[in-house]
């Protein structure tokens, strides 16, 4: 399957049982949003 780095992180967190994260959004973190971002 094809996955972005951001998707890998989120799916991996789910595999570790994580349902909630606390966070501070911003430019560099934008790809972590659910929609696949275009490559830079």
């Amino acid at each position, binding site marked *: 399957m*094809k996955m972005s780095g951001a998707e890998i992180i989120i799916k991996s967190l789910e595999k*570790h049982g*994580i349902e909630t994260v606390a966070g501070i959004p911003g430019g560099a973190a934008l*790809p972590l949003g659910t929609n696949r971002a275009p490559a830079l």
Partner: protein
Amino acid sequence: MARSTGRPAVCIATSGPGATNLITAIADAKLDSIPLVAITCQVPLSLIGTDAFQEVDMYGLTLSITKHSILAKTTEDLPMIINDAFRIAQSGRPGPVVVDVPKDILSRIIEIEALPEPAEICNYSDHSKLPAKICSAIAERINSAKRPVLYAGGGIIASSAFDELKTLAEKNSIPVAVTLMGLGSFPCDSGLYLGMVGMHGNHSTNIIFDNADLIICIGSRFNDRTTGAAVQFGKKADIIHIDIDPSEINKIKKTFISLASDARSAMEKIIPMIEENSREEWLETCKEKRARYDKKHHSISAHPESVIRAVSAAADKDAIITTDVGQHQMWVARNYPFKTGRNFLTSGGLGTMGFGLPAAIGAAIANPEKQVICFSGDGSILMNVQELATLADLKLNVKIILLNNGQLGLVRQQQELFYNKNYIATTFITAPDFPEIAKAFNITGFGIDSTAPNSMTIEQCMKVHGPVLINVPVQEEYNVYPMVPPGESNIVMMKGEETEKSEPLKKAVS
């Protein structure tokens, strides 16, 4: 979240200021051994090292405040890196791990077969592998002790060794004292419970440690707030130290016997070799010390100690308590009846003001069925007051009890006692109206006024559904007592007006 469940929690921040805003929280997790995975985003790989927009070197910045820091360099590495981060955060002594991920690594799409299953955690729980000789030497020393005390710390909670600690203490009738981080590891209603040891511990407990011939430290690290002047701490005692982290052993106090082990496994192995003993004489001595040295509870109902006891009476029995840092934290530690582990969440090692409200939010998310009570001070709450917005958004069952003395009280207390009452930067000249602040965030805010005839009681305010802030005025002169002056031996405790030295042990216990 992690403190209330024992499982790792995750926070994510954008690069630069987002990431540096996590630094205090990461350091907090490090000093309290809390499993945390902090994911920070980074400028694209090609821009690292160029002072790019919002670039800070999080890998370098966090090396000394994490168990491990990782900079991801390829997208292909990410599955393994996340797995490693969780494994390291939870294995052995828990702690924070930072994963710094450049933006292009986040965005790049790769072909991947499947994500790996979570890696196995190494928690050293197999006691059959513990050295038999050392375990039996520990048991023998405990059996032969005349005046033993158990000194239980945060490691009991990390290890969930509550039953084992109780069994060990009861089988051999050993009184148990706890550190701030160990509160809740032993039930406070047990006859063997001595309460907290150290700077703001019970006077009697510090005296009992001074009289002990054996101190059995399990899952604690002889922090200076616990030991006072470390050379004087337990000077008549042999020390047994059980800790999962070998680097803690002999770091502060030289031990008689030590064992690098998980607390629960060590006790499981040792308990069968422990003899039953009723230790009437030693327990009687401890009881006498308690009656003699510990002050009775305050009778003034507006005193924070009384307020905290009123809150505990009105609270759910399994409520989770968080605190900020300051006098209110010590009053809670000394007065709230903690019976089980992971119900008291406080910033012990770093002493981070601003901890209480976000910790309460995390605890409420992780434990939706439980009531969460956050005791805060007027200084501390302002350090993360924006989190009232999160609390309002999530409508969590968090009751904030604001012990409002118009002061940065704990610092004011030190200025009063040790710096000639030279009060600098500790008084709020313009006192904010906290119930109004709460209301501005759409949170119910109450002000308790014990002088007004129709003022609501704390019990009534706590019954209100959803998030509530209750402002409780506290007289600014109230200090936390007893107290060991910084750097002094624990037996030199200030009780209030007078500094009293303990008398030598009158009757030697055989």
